[in-house]
C-alpha cells in the first residue's frame, strides 16, 4: 500500500490549528465577549454545518472528477447510502453516531467500487448519464424498500443526535448549543477528511489519478494500472460522499428519499466546477458558494437602493451567477483566487475587462468568428490553472 506521508507535517499542524481557531473559536465562542461579539444566529450555525458537510462530499467528488477525470452525476446516491446507513444504525439499532458515520462511509465506498468497475467501460457523457441514472433511481429504490428505509416517511434522527458532551462544560466552562456542538463535530470530520485528501492528492496515488485523466494510454504505458486506480478513485470519492451523508443525517436531523434526488447530484457537480476542479481549495470554495449564493440577493444586492431581486427570481439569479462565473473564471473560484493572489489587482481588472470586451465584441459583431483566440490557445487564463501553482 502507499505510504501516507503528511505534506510537511509542521505546516499542516499550524494550518489545522489556525483554521480551527478561525472557523470555530472566533464566530462561536462566547469566551471573549466584548472582544469578539460575533455570535451568529442559530440559523447561521446550521448553514455553517451544511457548508462543512458539502465540503466533505465536494472533496471526494473533486478527487474523482477533477483529479481523475471521471464525471459523476450520481454522488447523491452515495450520500444517500451513507445517510441511510448511519440513520438506520442509529435509530433502529442504537449504534453510537461516530461508528455509524464510518460505517456509512465504508458501505458507500464499497458500492462506489462496485459502480467503478462497470464505469471502466464508459467515458465522458455516457459515464455522466449512467451515474445520473443512479441518482434518478435512488429515490425510487429508497421509497420502494420501505421495510429497511422507512419509505416516504423518512427517518427522524433527532433523538439520536448526541448533545454536547459534559466535559466541555466542565473543563472549558462553555455552554454550547446543540447546533454549535454539531458544527464542531462536523468541522472536526472536515479537517480529517481534508488532510486525508491533501495526502491523497500529493501522493503517488494522486499523481496516478491525474496521469490517467490527462491520458489513459500514456498512463498505462508508464505502468499505471488504469482499472485499479479508476475504481479506487470511485471508491474513495464514494467513501467521502458516504461520510458526508452520515453528517447530513446528523446535521439535518431528518432524512427522506426525496432529499437525495437528482437535483442534489447535479448541485454537487456544479459545486466543484464553480469552486474549481482539481483543487482542494476549490472544493471548499464551491461548498461555501453552494450555500451562500442563494443568500446573495438578500445579503448584498437588495441592500443597494433600487435593487430588488425578489424571492421569485432567486433561481434565475443563481443561474446568472453560475454563467458569469463560468465566463469570467473558467477555472472556478479557486482559479480566481489564484489569479488574485499571484497578480496585482490592476492586472486582474485588466484581464476581466478583456474577457468582457471580447464577449461584447462577439455579441455585436456579426463577422466575429468563434474559435479565435487573442494570443493563441493557451493564453486565456493559463495562470489560473491548478497545475500552474506548483
Amino acid at each position: 500500500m502507499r505510504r501516507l506521508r503528511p505534506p510537511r507535517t509542521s505546516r499542516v499542524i499550524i494550518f489545522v490549528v489556525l483554521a480551527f481557531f478561525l472557523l470555530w473559536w472566533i464566530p462561536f465562542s462566547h469566551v471573549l465577549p466584548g472582544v469578539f461579539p460575533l455570535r451568529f444566529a442559530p440559523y447561521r450555525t446550521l448553514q455553517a454545518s451544511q457548508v462543512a458537510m458539502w465540503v466533505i462530499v465536494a472533496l471526494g467528488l473533486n478527487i474523482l472528477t477533477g483529479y481523475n477525470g471521471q464525471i459523476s452525476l450520481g454522488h447523491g446516491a452515495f450520500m444517500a447510502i451513507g445517510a441511510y446507513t448511519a440513520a438506520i444504525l442509529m435509530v433502529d439499532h442504537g449504534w453510537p453516531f461516530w461508528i455509524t458515520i464510518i460505517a456509512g462511509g465504508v458501505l458507500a465506498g464499497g458500492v462506489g467500487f462496485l459502480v467503478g468497475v462497470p464505469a471502466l467501460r464508459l467515458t465522458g457523457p455516457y459515464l455522466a448519464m449512467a451515474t445520473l441514472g443512479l441518482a434518478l433511481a435512488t429515490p425510487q429504490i429508497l421509497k420502494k424498500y420501505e421495510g429497511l428505509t422507512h419509505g416516504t416517511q423518512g427517518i427522524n434522527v433527532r433523538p439520536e443526535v448526541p448533545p454536547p458532551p459534559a466535559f466541555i462544560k466542565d473543563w472549558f466552562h462553555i455552554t454550547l448549543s446543540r447546533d454549535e456542538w454539531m458544527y464542531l463535530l462536523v468541522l472536526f470530520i472536515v479537517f480529517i477528511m481534508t488532510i486525508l485528501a491533501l495526502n491523497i492528492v500529493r501522493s503517488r496515488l494522486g499523481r496516478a489519478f491525474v496521469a490517467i485523466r490527462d491520458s489513459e494510454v500514456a498512463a498505462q504505458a508508464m505502468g499505471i494500472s488504469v482499472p485499479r486506480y479508476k475504481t479506487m478513485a470511485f471508491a474513495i470519492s464514494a467513501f467521502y460522499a458516504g461520510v458526508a451523508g452520515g453528517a447530513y443525517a446528523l446535521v439535518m436531523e431528518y432524512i427522506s428519499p426525496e432529499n437525495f434526488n437528482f437535483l442534489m447530484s447535479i448541485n454537487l457537480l456544479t459545486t466543484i466546477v464553480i469552486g474549481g476542479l482539481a483543487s482542494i481549495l476549490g472544493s471548499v470554495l464551491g461548498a461555501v458558494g453552494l450555500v451562500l449564493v442563494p443568500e446573495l440577493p438578500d445579503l448584498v444586492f437588495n441592500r443597494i437602493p433600487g435593487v430588488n431581486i425578489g424571492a421569485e427570481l432567486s433561481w434565475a439569479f443563481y443561474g446568472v451567477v453560475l454563467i458569469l462565473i463560468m465566463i469570467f473564471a473558467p477555472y472556478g473560484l479557486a482559479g480566481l483566487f489564484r489569479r488574485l493572489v499571484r497578480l496585482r489587482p490592476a492586472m486582474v481588472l485588466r484581464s476581466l475587462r478583456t474577457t468582457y470586451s471580447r464577449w461584447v465584441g462577439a455579441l455585436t459583431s456579426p463577422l466575429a468568428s468563434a474559435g479565435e483566440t487573442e494570443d493563441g490557445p493557451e493564453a486565456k487564463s493559463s495562470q489560473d490553472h491548478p497545475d500552474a501553482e506548483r
Partner: protein
Amino acid sequence: MLQVRDLVAAYGPIVALHGVSLDVPEGSIVAVLGANGAGKSTTLRAISGLLRARSGSIKFEGQRIDHLSAEQIVSLGMSHIPEGRQLFSELTVLENLRLGAYSRFAQADGHGRLAHRQGLSLLGRLQHDLIQAATGGIRDLARTVREYGHRRRDFDAALKQIFEYFPILAQRKNQVAGTLSGGEQQMLAIGRGLMARPRLLLLDEPSMGLAPLVTREIFEIIQAINRTQGVTILVVEQNANLALEIAHYGYVLETGRIALADTSENLRKSEAVRRSYLGQ
C-alpha cells in the same frame, strides 16, 4: 504577393516570433527552414489568421490581413494546409474535397466585400455588418441556388484536376479519410487545399511522418502545381534538402527570428546551412 514585416506572435506569455519579416514573390516557391520550435508553424498560423499577431503587418496582394479572421483570409485566395494534415478523419475523401471547395465561391464575394468594408467609416461598417448578418445567409443561399449549375461544373472540373495530380485519391473517393495511409492523407490534404483555388498555398511540414519515396513524390507534385498553375507556395519544412530543391528562395528561422534569407541556391551552398541543416 505576401509581405510580412516585423511579425511578433505569442502563445500567452511565451513569445514565439520576435519580429519576423519575409517576402513571397508571386509565382515563386519560398521555403522556411529551421529546427523544431523555431517558430515555423507559428509563422504560418499567424499569416493564415489562426493565430492573432501581437504586432507587425502582413500584406497579401497589397491588402493588410493581419487582423482578419482565418475564414476571411481563405476567401481572399490563401489556403493553409496545416501541420499534421488536420483532415476530417471521419468524413470521406470526397467529402473532404467538397469542404475544400467551400470557400471557392466566397472568394469573389469575400474579396470585394472586404475591400468595400475597409473603405467605410465606423458607422458605415456597423451598418454593413448588420445588413450582412441579417440578410447574408439568405443572399448566400440565393446565390447558391442561382449558380448551381455553373458551380457544379466548376467543382467537377476542379475535382478532375485534383484526381489528375493524385490518382490514388480517385480510387479511394468514398473511403473514410482516417483510414488512408500517411502519404495518401497528405495528398488529400493538399488536394483539399487546392480545391479552394488559392493563389497562395501555405504548406506546413508536408513531409512529416512520411516515407522518403512518398515525400519525394509529393514534393514533385508541389513543384508541378507551382509550374503549371502558377500557384505561389510558401512551404515550411524540417527537411531542408527537399525544400531547397524545389524552392526559389529560402528563409532560415532560429528561435523566432530570421537568421538567413537568400535564394535557395545560395543557401544550399552556404556553410552555415550545410552544417546545421543539410547535415554536411
